[in-house]
Structure formats: C-alpha cells, structure tokens
C-alpha cells in the first residue's frame, strides 16, 4: 500500500489546498483535520488523515469495510474516545482545537446519526426529540413544544406523527425511527451533523427519504456522511473522500471523483473492481 502525501492529491477546489488554518475564511472550512491518527489499543485504525470540511456542504466518506471511515467520523465528535480509543493529530472546529473543548459541549454542536436507528425506548416520540434539550436543562415547556415541532418538520416526520406524539418512539417503522433520530439531533441545534451510514439499515423508500432530507439540511448544516453506497455518495454529496486501509487516497469534488478520479485506486474502487 503506497502512502499518499497530501501534496500529490489533486485538489480541484482551492478549499482543499494545504493552507494554514488561520488564512482560511471561517465560512470556508468548518472542520480541518490534520494528520489524524486513531488507535484502538495498539491497532492503528487511521494513519494520518488530513481533510478540510467546508461549511454548509455535504462531504461523503467512502471506502471498503474496515478502511476507518466510521472511526474518522467518530474522531470528529470525540466519540472515538468513548469506545476507549486514542487520537493524535489536530482537529480544528471553527478554528478551535476540539481537544480543548469539553466533549459534552462539543457534541451539542456536532451531532451524530448512527447506522441503526436508536430512539430511546422508554420515551415517547415527543420526549425523544426533547431529550437533548431537556437533559441539558434548558428551554421552557412552550419553547420545547416549538422546538420539537420544528425539528420534526425539518426531519420530514411531523405530518406522520403529529397526532401520536405520545406514542413510543420504538413503535415507528425503521425509516421513521431514523428520521426521529435526525429530529432528535436537530433539536439540539448543532452546526455539523455526522452521519454514519444513516440509511444502510433501511429499505429503498426510506433511504430515498433520508437522502432527500440530507439534500435539504445542507442549506443550514455542515454534513459529513459515511456510506457504503457509492450511488448514495454521488447523489447527496458535494465532496467525496476515498479512504483505504486507514489512509486518505483521494479527496475532491464529488463529480470529479466519480467521473475522472485522478488516482487509479479510486477508480478501481468506484468501478467495483475491489472493495
């Protein structure tokens, strides 16, 4: 496996050139990761990932199973540490080092959607969406109701559940549960949403709904989505990063990555010759 130095990566967009963080407009890069290495005990899962994630765009991370794409995602909101992993390198969020943050505060600004829908089983639909705010001890009853409605509308679930907000969250279908989880994340009003294969456990119709949602959400949020499904990456993302065995192989405009990738490995993966 050939290590690829950042300067060899073709960066069609100036956003991705290796400029020092300070010279980048805040509106340009929401998250800048430099040489991020992640470990599980002695096993190295990421071998130095440097990426700029632009604001209000969708960045897809693709790659074969075990390439470290989920691990990379979980470094950004420091969930990697919860699982007992360690990280080195720097991750800047709005120009600030995320390791200077209290992880709890950081996660309120960087939300996460998981592969399997995971609504809280002891809570109603309403309580699920309100959980983040309620357990952080802010917002009055009236505010809460407004935020819950707004979040459910944003997640395109309101019309389906508005008459049954007191039903259990787990009584919904899988696709609805996932949108409920998205609403729950939106309610905390994050700036970035990390999605770890959000549609891989869902049927095609629910998947289409989630993709539609991602398309809408990018107006207000920065989204990083990990996916196995290359068509999905091509459909929803503005930029695509291809990871292989813990290394970044290529990163660029989604159109370019899928039509004329500059690195042979990317092409082979996209055309299905390996992975």
């Amino acid at each position, binding site marked *: 496996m050939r290590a690829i130095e950042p300067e060899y990566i073709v960066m069609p967009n100036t956003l991705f050139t290796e400029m020092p963080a300070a010279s980048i407009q805040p509106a340009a890069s929401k998250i800048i990761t430099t040489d991020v290495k992640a470990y599980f005990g002695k096993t190295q899962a990421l071998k130095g990932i440097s990426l700029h994630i632009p604001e209000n765009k969708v960045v897809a991370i693709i790659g074969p199973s075990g390439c470290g794409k989920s691990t990379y995602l979980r470094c950004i909101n420091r*969930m990697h540490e919860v699982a007992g992993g360690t990280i080195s390198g720097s991750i800047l969020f709005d120009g600030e080092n995320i390791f200077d943050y209290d992880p*709890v505060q950081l*996660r309120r600004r960087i939300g996460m959607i998981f592969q*399997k829908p995971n609504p809280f089983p002891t809570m109603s639909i309403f309580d699920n969406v309100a959980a983040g705010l309620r*357990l952080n001890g802010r917002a009055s009853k009236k505010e809460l109701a407004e935020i819950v409605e707004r979040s459910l509308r944003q997640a395109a679930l309101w019309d389906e559940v508005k008459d049954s907000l007191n039903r259990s969250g787990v009584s919904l279908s899988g696709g609805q549960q996932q949108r409920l989880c998205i609403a729950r*994340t939106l309610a905390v009003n994050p700036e970035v949403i990390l999605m770890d294969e959000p549609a891989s456990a869902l049927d095609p119709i629910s998947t289409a709904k989630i993709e539609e949602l991602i398309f809408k959400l990018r107006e207000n949020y920065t989204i990083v989505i990990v996916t196995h499904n290359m068509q999905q990456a091509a459909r929803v993302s503005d930029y695509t990063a291809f990871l292989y065995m813990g290394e970044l192989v290529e990163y660029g405009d989604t159109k370019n990555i899928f039509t004329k990738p500059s690195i042979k490995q990317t092409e082979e993966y996209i055309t299905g010759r390996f992975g």
Partner: protein
Amino acid sequence: MSSLCILSVLVAVVPLFLVIYYTLSQGIGALNLDFFIKMPKPVGESGGGMANALVGTAILIGLGSIIGLPVSILAGIYLAENGDNTFGAIVRFFADVLSGIPSIVVGVVAYMLVVLPMKGFSAIAGGVALGILMIPTATRTTEEMIRLVPHSLREAALALGIPQWKTMLRIVLPVALKGITTGILLAIARAAGETAPLLFTALGNRFWSTEINHPIASLTVFIYDYAKAPFEDWNRQAWAAAFVLILLIVIVNVIFRFATRDRYESNRT
C-alpha cells in the same frame, strides 16, 4: 421431550402450591381481623394477633432496603460501567461469595457491628443484617441488567451532548429498571423471609414498638417462637403468620410490577 419438560414444570410448581395450600389450611383458623390488628396475648390466654410483628417486619424490610439498596444500585452501576478490571473482578467475586454465606453469619456480623456498640438489640441492627443480605443479589442483578442495555442507546445520548451521569440516570437506568426491580424484589423477598440473623439483632418483642433503637417484633421470629411452642393456638397462629408472610411478598411484587410497568404497549414486541 416436551412431556419431560411439562413434568419438570410440575415438579417445580407443585411444591409451591403445596406450601401455600398447607400454610393456608393450617393457619386459616387463626386468620381473622384480630390477627392483623391485635397484639399477642400473654401465655395461657387464647386469641390475640400479630399487629406488632406485621409492623415490625415492614420496618425491618424498610430499614434493610434503605441500608442495602442504594449501595447495591450504585455498586451495580459501577461494576457495569467501570468494572472490567481487577478491582471489578474482586468486587464481583466477593458479591458472589456473600450471596452464598449463611444468613446467620451475617447476623453475627451485625451483632458485632451494631448490637455490641449500641449495648442492646435493636431494629436498626436487624435492618443492617437484612441490608447486608440484600446487597449481593441486588448488586449483581443491577449490573447484569445495565449491561443488557444496548450500547447504541448510550452512544445516542452521549452524541446529543448529554453528560455521562445523566445518560446513566435518565437513559440507561430507565431501560434497565424492570430487570433491576426484579432483582430488588428477590433481595427483599429473601430478606423478608430471614429468621436467623434477626434472632440476635432485632431479637423480637411481644409488645408494640416502632422505635428503631429498641428490639422489634417480626413475623419470622414469631413463626419461630410460636411453631415450637406447646400450645395449639400458637401453632395455628404460626401457620397464619407464614401465610401472611407469603401474601406480603406477593403484594410487594405486584406493587413493584405495577409501578415499573411498560408505559407503552408496543414495547412488548
């Protein structure tokens, strides 16, 4: 094979029904309103009841729960969350050993710890003994039940920016609550049925007392005293007390189940 299973079920269940039937049939003669509201009569007089023992048992269980359950639940949470190390293994090992220790030994410990320093038998000493008896079962069940809660729920909560302690308290514990309740009930039921550790801690009392620093009556000690007494009247009352004890445990069970029932029908899928 299935007939063998049915047979096994019968073997398991029949003794239970026999116990209930036998205690009821033997004690029914003494089961009346007086039994619940009257005090024991002096030797030689017939009639009377066990009001003080009923209240005493309730107080002893209450004291035991206050002493034992918080420790158990916190220890269970600790073992589930941070117990994957040598210290956790040691705590777990001792909890398992403690659950197998004869209850009379726990009684001796409570005698040394409470009765001797206080220079007298007392309800609080009985409560300490029962509390210690509750700890192993309740701790291990709490741990197991918390471990059963899917990790994804914890992650979901943490990813929302909910602090770890709130995640445990408001997300994980409610999910595990039903199982934990079952464990606590087992612990309470065991404590309620203990006689040996009460003999030299709470001692027993033929008079009305609700003070926790004085000897206190309990159903089990009454059963012990009355069953070996040479009076038929007392023997009958012992049977009745045994039946009431079983009934008490059933009632506690039902109340706990009701309090921790599923709020959502659909959860039972």
